[in-house]
């Protein structure tokens, strides 16, 4: 990371590559992360998309991209990336395309595909060592269909399919660890509220070949129940409360890139979201709140002990 061209926030790109006029909701944390990522990646990209909110980025005849795009289906975007990458390699090998015409192959999916239906195709692409970047905008539910519970939904959250007093009883799947267990080239978590950390990680990922994951927590005003203007504030709180650890993994070693000096209580993050309102009104669900806090503390306790959490 010492060679980063992003030494300070002033090094962040002043020009933005992603077109305006998309159908994403106002205040979309996923779009915020995507446009920051795209600024670093540049226009020599082909996005291979799975069914999700961002499928609606390109609706005939409108696209926000300077480069290319291929919508596949919910489960098989990494397989689409495989076909595109292999075909580009074949064309390069056989001299039917110049190196200047080559593209970065980038999978773009939500958490529904990344944590669930697309896992088999993802695991396959990683095991084959496919040279691709996988961007997941994680809004912790099937956002495009109205925020039903997905494999990424956190414990206690209310969703369209968990409306009860205690919310979702399960736990958020650890996609970072699932990826890291495959020993890919690179795995990182990011968030649009921390653009410098994000830029450095995308820069890092671009310098590597092989399977690379950029997992972006995507605060979702629509699905999480908060005002669109709070997207960044909520993102910062996710980091400062330790809910969303910013980290990266290379060569089997995980590093935290931003360790909150003094973690804020997780309540600060939960209480400003409608999806956790049932934990506070009509009465506080202390047992759930304590449980959520305890899990976060345990995570960071391990980080402080070992300097890292083994995936």
């Amino acid at each position, binding site marked *: 990371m010492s060679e980063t061209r992003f030494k300070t926030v002033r090094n962040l790109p002043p020009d933005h590559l992603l077109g305006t006029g998309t159908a994403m909701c106002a205040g979309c944390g996923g779009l915020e992360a995507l446009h920051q990522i795209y600024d670093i990646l540049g*226009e*020599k990209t*082909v996005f*291979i998309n799975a069914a999700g909110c961002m*499928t*609606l980025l*390109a*609706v*005939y005849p409108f*696209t926000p*991209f*300077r*480069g*290319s*795009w*291929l*919508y*596949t*289906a919910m*489960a*098989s975007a*990494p*397989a*689409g*990336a*495989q*076909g*595109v990458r*292999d*075909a*580009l*390699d*074949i*064309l390069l090998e*056989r001299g*039917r*395309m110049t190196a*200047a*015409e*080559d*593209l970065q192959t980038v999978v773009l999916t939500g958490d529904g595909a990344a944590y669930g239906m697309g896992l*088999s*195709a993802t*695991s*396959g692409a990683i095991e*084959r060592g496919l040279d691709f970047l996988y961007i997941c905008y994680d809004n912790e539910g099937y956002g495009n269909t109205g925020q039903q519970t997905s494999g990424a939904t956190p414990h206690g959250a209310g969703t369209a399919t968990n409306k009860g007093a205690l919310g979702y009883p399960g736990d958020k799947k650890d996609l970072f660890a699932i990826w890291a267990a495959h020993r890919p080239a690179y795995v990182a978590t990011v968030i649009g509220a921390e653009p410098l950390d994000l830029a450095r990680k995308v820069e890092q990922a671009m310098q590597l070949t092989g399977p690379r994951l950029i997992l972006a927590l995507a605060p979702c005003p629509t699905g999480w129940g908060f005002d669109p203007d709070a997207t960044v504030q909520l993102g910062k709180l996710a980091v400062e409360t330790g809910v969303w650890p910013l980290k990266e993994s290379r060569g089997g070693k995980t590093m935290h890139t931003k360790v909150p000096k003094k973690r804020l209580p997780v309540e600060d993050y939960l209480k400003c979201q409608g999806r956790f309102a049932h934990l506070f009104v009509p009465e506080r669900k202390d047992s759930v709140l304590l449980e959520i806090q305890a899990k976060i503390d345990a995570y960071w306790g391990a980080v402080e002990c070992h300097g890292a959490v083994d995936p």
Partner: protein
Amino acid sequence: MREMLTGNGAAAWGARLAEVEYLPAFPITPQTEIIETIAKWIDFGECNCRIVMLDSEHSMITAAGAAATTGVRTFTATSSQGLLYGMEMLYTVAGWRAPFVLVNVSRGLASPITLEPDHNDILAARDCGFLQLHCATCQEVLDSVLLAFRVAEDPRVRLPVIVNLDGFYLSFTREPVKVPSVQEVAGFLPPFDPQNQGFRAGTPFSQAVAVLGGTAYSYFRYQSHLAARNAEAVFTESAVLFNETFGRSYQAVETYCCDDAEVVFVMMGSFATKAKAAVDQLRAAGQAVGLLRPLLLRPFPAEAVRRALVGKRGVAIVDQNLSPGYGGILHSEFAANLYGCRDVNPVLVSFIGGLGGRDIGPEEFFEMVNITRAAVASGCIPPPRLLYTESELRDMRKWQSIALEHRSGGELQ
């Protein structure tokens, strides 16, 4: 060069001679031999192609469509459950107008799970937008792969094609097959021209984007239909060139002893050669019987079928598939196609046979002619007849008595 090849071997040779560049693969019986054969050629430097094992047929068809869209000649193969597992992507990549060739080795569908052939798998893919070629011999498998690439890549078509062969009866059956030389094939099948489409830096291309509303959707879907309709003429034109190049003649609809026939069998795939054998015997017995076999099922060669059936009195349609609650799928296609044709109005009699690889005996073909003639004579059309014998039912009873042990081996009532 003529050599003994299985249907799977012939499919592999077709791909090799087409100089396919990319093979996304996933194993499934009875198709696996195809990808293993090509993989071996690749490993020993006989084939300049990239093979990649995907995690599923769904992924495999995605990768195939993506590669074809990027601009390389792509081949893949599957069967049965695999075809259905990838069904979402069959529709999807056809909509991308991604030209490539998929070989399907037909096998009955679960449940119950089986390895043996019938056509419910391929007919489930009838409406997905792929063109369909149905092969009757191992030679035809090799030839159809070459024809399929030529038709798929034609600018008047630009659609993926499924070449279908029956499991076991072709896939694992060896027959002498004429394998053309690379030079001969080069004269028939030029290299894939992606016509400046594909993903390249500097040329923005967003493929398969969403649409809102029925106006854009109707247009794009109907364009796929128009492309498929074009494919019939392109196939016929390609078949003429094929005949000139290789000396083997193919038509969208094969007719055998049809010209003066009173009764005609309709069958698809390898069992049609059994019908041909029955036709020979019937002809020897003085009966004017023939066979009609669609090689091309999509696009449906409607006019050719009608022409072939002018003046026929009875048609015995033998469906190796079953649409529960209706009956035979080919029967419905033929009935629809002939409806309202004043000069083509034979009696159509429906037979369901060969499900899950169940054999069809010559005596059954002979009897089907009798039943069809009786229907013609009486004007009474019998309900669909399942080809299933008393001895088969006795076997079933035996097995049921074992499966239902609590009945203490007793006969079922």
